[in-house]
């Protein structure tokens, strides 16, 4: 077999003082064949980005290669001079960073940024570089590339920016492109489109790709080979398909089983124990959390060859393999039954008792009257109504900018709605400029922003004690705080620590504990766990479910993550640009008929899971028309794959009602929608067993 394009052998990287604790990569070996894609998967902190940075010779200050070598196209990278490397990076090896808005220079035009590299590496003159830039933008499927060259990055949407970044990476026709979490932060539809683009580029250009992601689904669709990382080690590597089907390392197995899937039955997803203390730096890094760990795991174990290029570092890989393929064994019927019963109490959504929270015709608009002349009002939330029963979980789905966060802020009283009413146990709340403290106690919220959710300079004890001081005017005893922090699966030793010393997952769980402390009747989770990785999300979801049972709290769960919301919600509302296009039980919404917007979301989620439902008619790249700007007609008309005609643009769609409180706002009758969609999407199994 020919030598791989890129080969990393036994690479170890450390930061000062270069001891075991600071060794961030341990004996990492990887290979990327020419024209193939390698997916690197791991939780945050597993060292997957460090691998990319090490290949790019871009480690943070003080980073040092302790051992190993990196070979690229037959040349030893680690032996090259800086000058030699400079001619390589950007030309042969290109890099696309995670956040496209941060990796484009906001003050340079797209054209300038695209042609820079060509002028430097290929010595092209301005004219030909510009021509090539146009061709590149066309290749990444951006419309009207000539005009785009004179735009600034802020004039483009996130998906378009990421496409520009990919075009920049392709500018000098590299043989290898490294993408670090290229789709994190993009909505599912855009994410699918970007992954499709990468797949195409790989084929057309015979491009080698390293795709780093914590999104297993994204990797599964693209990668030929995968490497699963944990604690700075590659714990398993090899061809993608067999590993996805039947991993040979216990960690890979648990990680893959934790993947929520739209299609798979909503069995109790497997759970990886919470990460405790530090990761062992010798032997198997995963052994402290592993349910199959034995004494031999602490010994240094190089790796076992499963077959050919499939390597695992699990001592018990044979036992892991013996567990059988993933999908068939994991869902045991009993567990699933228990799970379904837990999560959907009988009659949820149809309760006759007074709802805990009822929101009706809520409107929140921006734009105020100036000198008596009303400005065009932009509605972030437009005529939203829903009811929340006791102990019910309501999922609110929508992409960024759909007004779901504004809705949450209205409900907790952070912003005042323009019109409509919010009632908490029958009591009207919209009249208050500031909620009374008792109302505040009953409605608690956890925000999306992990970095800013807790005061960075307060210790956890102070943060967690505050609700007791505020609502009960007492300082809680230490053991009360210990119980509280234990209830979200955190250890008491975190109490004297400052919030800034906590990891993202710990912070969000502490925020959750603080929100639970006053025993609220409504808990709003505003994308609270979107930034956590898959296994962490599942653990948090289970936690919320358990606590809900205990306290009977009603939950509003705001997210853009369809498979995840399926796992936790009883009922769903789907929002698009401030407008509710669909409401109903979770089970109903995730099978036809869909509102055409929901359809695009489901389509994207299924695509991400590697299925290929009939291709959706290509719609325009999401433009940046502000939310609610469409005054007439259906807000979704311009993007709609099933648009009927001018009626969609001129008349606002009627709300069609179905059974079980099902509502779809569309000009197409429900039955027609069902007929059209059933052919393309077999119903998604919410009940047990019906995996297609």
């Amino acid at each position, binding site marked *: 077999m020919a030598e791989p394009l890129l080969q990393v052998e036994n690479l170890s990287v450390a930061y000062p003082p270069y001891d075991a604790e600071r060794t961030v990569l341990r004996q990492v070996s990887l290979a990327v064949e020419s024209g193939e894609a390698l997916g690197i998967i791991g939780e945050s902190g597993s060292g997957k980005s460090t691998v990319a940075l090490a290949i790019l010779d871009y480690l943070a200050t003080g980073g040092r290669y302790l051992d190993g070598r990196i070979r690229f196209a037959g040349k030893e990278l680690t032996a090259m001079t800086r000058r030699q490397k400079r001619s390589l990076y950007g030309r042969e090896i290109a890099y696309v960073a995670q956040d496209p808005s941060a990796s484009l220079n906001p003050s340079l035009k797209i054209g300038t940024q695209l042609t820079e590299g060509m002028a430097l590496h290929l010595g092209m003159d301005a004219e030909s570089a510009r021509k090539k830039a146009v061709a590149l933008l066309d290749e990444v499927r951006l419309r009207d590339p000539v005009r785009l060259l004179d735009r600034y990055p802020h004039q483009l949407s996130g998906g378009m920016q990421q496409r520009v970044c990919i075009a920049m990476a392709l500018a000098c026709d590299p043989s290898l492109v490294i993408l670090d979490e290229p789709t994190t932060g993009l909505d599912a539809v855009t994410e699918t489109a970007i992954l499709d683009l990468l797949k195409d580029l790989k084929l057309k250009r015979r491009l080698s790709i390293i795709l780093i992601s914590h999104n297993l689904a994204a990797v599964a669709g693209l990668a030929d080979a995968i490497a699963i990382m944990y604690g700075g080690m590659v714990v398993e590597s090899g061809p993608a398909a067999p590993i996805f089907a039947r991993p040979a390392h216990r960690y890979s197995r648990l990680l893959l089983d934790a993947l929520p899937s739209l299609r798979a039955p909503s069995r109790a997803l497997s759970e990886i124990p919470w990460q405790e203390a530090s990761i062992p730096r010798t032997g198997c890094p995963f052994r402290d959390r592993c349910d199959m760990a034995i004494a031999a795991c602490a010994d240094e174990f190089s790796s076992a060859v499963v077959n050919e290029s499939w390597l695992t570092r699990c001592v018990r890989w044979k036992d892991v393999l013996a567990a059988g393929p993933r999908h068939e064994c994991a869902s045991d019927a009993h567990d699933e039954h228990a799970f379904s019963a837990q999560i959907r109490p009988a009659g949820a959504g149809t309760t006759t008792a007074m709802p805990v929270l009822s929101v009706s015709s809520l409107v929140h608009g921006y734009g105020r009257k100036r000198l008596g002349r009303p400005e065009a009002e932009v509605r972030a939330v437009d005529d939203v109504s829903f009811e929340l029963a006791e102990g019910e979980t309501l999922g609110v789905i929508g992409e960024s900018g759909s007004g779901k966060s504004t809705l949450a802020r209205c409900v907790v009283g952070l912003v005042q709605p323009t019109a409509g009413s919010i009632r908490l146990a029958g009591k009207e709340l919209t009249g208050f400029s500031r909620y009374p403290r008792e109302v505040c106690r009953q409605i608690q919220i956890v925000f999306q922003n992990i970095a800013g959710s807790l*005061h960075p300079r307060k210790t956890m004890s102070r943060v967690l004690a505050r609700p007791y001081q505020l609502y009960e005017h007492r300082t809680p005893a230490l053991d009360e705080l210990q119980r509280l922090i234990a209830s979200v699966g955190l250890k008491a030793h975190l109490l004297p620590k400052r919030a800034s010393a906590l990891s993202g997952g710990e912070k969000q769980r502490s925020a959750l504990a603080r929100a639970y402390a006053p025993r609220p009747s409504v808990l709003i989770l505003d994308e609270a766990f979107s930034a956590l990785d898959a296994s962490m999300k599942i653990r948090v979801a289970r936690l919320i479910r358990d606590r809900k049972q205990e306290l009977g709290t009603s939950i509003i769960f705001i997210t853009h993550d369809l498979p995840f919301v399926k796992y936790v919600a009883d009922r769903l509302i789907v929002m698009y640009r401030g407008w509710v296009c669909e409401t109903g039980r979770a089970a109903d919404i995730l099978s036809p008929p869909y509102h055409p917007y929901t359809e695009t979301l489901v389509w994207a989620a299924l695509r991400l899971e590697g299925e290929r439902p009939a291709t959706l008619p290509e719609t325009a790249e999401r433009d940046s028309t502000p939310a609610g700007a469409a005054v007439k007609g259906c807000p979704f008309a311009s993007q709609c794959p099933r648009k009927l005609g001018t009626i969609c643009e001129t008349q606002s769609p009627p709300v069609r009602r179905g059974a079980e409180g099902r509502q779809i706002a569309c000009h197409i009758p429900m039955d027609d929608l069902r007929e059209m969609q059933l052919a393309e999407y077999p119903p998604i199994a919410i009940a047990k067993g019906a995996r297609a």
Partner: protein
Amino acid sequence: MTIGTVDVAGTDTGVVPVHMRRPLWRDPVFVGAGTVLLIHVFLALLAPLIIPYPPDQMSFSATLQPPSLEHWFGTDRYGRDLLSRVIMGGQLTLAFGFGSVAMCLLIGLPAGLISAYYGGLVDQVIMRTMDILMSFPTLLLGLLILIIAGPDLGNLIIAVGIVYCPRTTRVVRAAALTVRHSAFIEAAQARGESSAYIIVRELLPCAWGAIIVEICIRLGYAILLGASFNYLGLGVQPPAADWGLLVHEARSQMLRAPWTAIFPILFITTLVSSLHLLGDTIDERLKEGDVG
């Protein structure tokens, strides 16, 4: 096998990993500047105990003596021992330095925090008032206040405080604004916390670092400005003398007896530079998120 150290100094990451940073107390600039400041503070505190001669004791047989073993810093034109006068002057200098900064904070801290928290009209009123104050040349505004209020130490403190409080307000406001829209402030509002609690318990702790830097830098400026007023004769009245006034007294014989000016200037310079260097090093650490 070690392949080599990777040097990426000057890359745009620019963040030095936490564990790589020297602790602040081992930073030579911080330690040096801190030592100089401490020496100044101790000299001022212990002044009456260590001065070799009473500062006002004149000796007409020994006027304008150059530095010698008897008079380390020499004598002035009335034969007063310059070393004693400079050390005693330190008391006054530091007193009005700290006094003025306290005055700055008294106005600037609440104004800046309130301005940042409420925003909108409140912000506009406070900040535009501060802008008006700031648009006067510092020396001119100070002169105006001192001429109206009359020259003495207390009025000097008030004058310098008023002259510099808009800058303090801006710094405090800017520091508070960086966290004003954080999720934890929103969470506090959603929790039903009072505005006073949020300002004092949530905003203020985040601004402390910047305030410490501001105190250091502002002290330096306040001492310089105070010295300028004293030099003009608008602050401390003779025979007491701070360093500014000492320079003023040295003016007429500066060329004949340079030491009369050099030593007070040296003291002002070392004190002010040590304060600024301290402020700078703390500021750098703050940007890296280390202090606090």
